[in-house]
């Protein structure tokens, strides 16, 4: 389980011995590379956990740090520093990949705060019918049936214009629903970023439910697109 490092413990730089309590890749004092910290992905970029991220700034910082970690720069460095530069690079890449994607970032932050996402759903929790409304399941199921019919028809070399049309319609509809979910997620981001503990807990619950819904919709859009394009 991931843990939020609320206030990182001050660590002394191995080189200049000045204590720094940021989970940074480089010592803020002497600029020497530091071993990978136990901090979260946000701290790699010197950020506090948040959901509304300045993506341009993030990308910029990613490139700057990547350059600073480039192996060429450590060609003459000690063995430790070489190892750390590799480990830091791996950490930086993971952190960037996770944070730049809005959904991955949201899931990551929620996990940091103890939400059960994906494989970690507890049994009790997932039986809660409010998590995914039954009518959505019905729709998902029916559309999957249609998709199957269409795939079978295509295999036989048949073209069913009516089916094709209804699939196009369904695709547009579910893409619309996906957009709605994403808008709602973004609204919760701001609530989480600005909120106190109580507001955050509420936003967190909302987001977990939205992400569940999103997974069904996303599968559908993917499958419909595949079938239509095949």
């Amino acid at each position: 389980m991931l843990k939020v490092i609320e206030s990182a413990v001050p660590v002394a730089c191995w080189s200049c011995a000045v204590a720094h309590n940021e989970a940074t890749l480089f010592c803020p004092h002497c600029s020497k590379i530091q071993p990978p910290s136990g901090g979260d992905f946000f701290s790699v970029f010197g950020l506090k956990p948040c959901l509304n991220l300045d993506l341009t700034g993030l990308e910029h910082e990613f490139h700057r740090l990547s350059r600073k970690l480039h192996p060429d720069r450590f060609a003459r460095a000690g063995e430790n520093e070489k190892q750390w530069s590799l480990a830091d690079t791996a950490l930086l890449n993971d952190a960037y990949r996770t944070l730049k994607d809005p959904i991955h970032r949201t899931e990551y932050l929620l996990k940091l705060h103890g939400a059960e996402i994906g494989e970690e759903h507890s049994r009790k929790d997932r039986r809660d019918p409010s998590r995914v409304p039954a009518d959505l399941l019905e729709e998902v199921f029916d559309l999957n049936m249609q998709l199957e019919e269409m795939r079978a028809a295509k295999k036989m070399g048949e073209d069913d214009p009516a089916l094709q049309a209804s699939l196009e319609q369904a695709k547009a509809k579910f893409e619309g629903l996906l957009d709605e979910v994403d808008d709602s997620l973004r609204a919760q981001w701001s609530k989480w970023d600005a909120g106190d503990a109580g507001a955050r807990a509420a936003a967190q619950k909302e987001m977990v439910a939205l992400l569940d819904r999103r997974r069904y919709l996303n599968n559908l859009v993917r499958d419909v697109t595949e079938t239509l394009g095949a």
Partner: protein
Amino acid sequence: MAYSDKVVDHYNNPRNVGTLDKSSQEVGTGLVGAPECGDVMRLQIKVNPDTQVIEEAKFKTFGCGSAIASSSLATEWIKGRTVEDALAIKNTDIVKELSLPPVKIHCSVLAEDAIRAAISDWKKKNGVAEAAAAETAAQ
């Protein structure tokens, strides 16, 4: 991921794929989803009104190989059992039988959920209270 032989077998030759008449009084339908991955499964049972024995079971799963195998196995297991007996099937039994790895446990949970949902739909349709059904089964 490497699937066990049993999973492959059920995947290639799924048992009891199909549909039962949803509107029939004797049929219970369970439609469930796995929030972990967005997969969906429908499992239907046809119950003999006198004996409460599940005479028919059909499923349709849109999901991974493990989910298909789990639901295929589930229909095999519940056929011929009474409704209350079928409720005793746990997802862990499915995990064991199919040797599912930890990341695929939720697929077996989906099958257990589907059995429960189908049975509770049938009970609702037939006005069978949970406790009353348990008594009948115990007799």
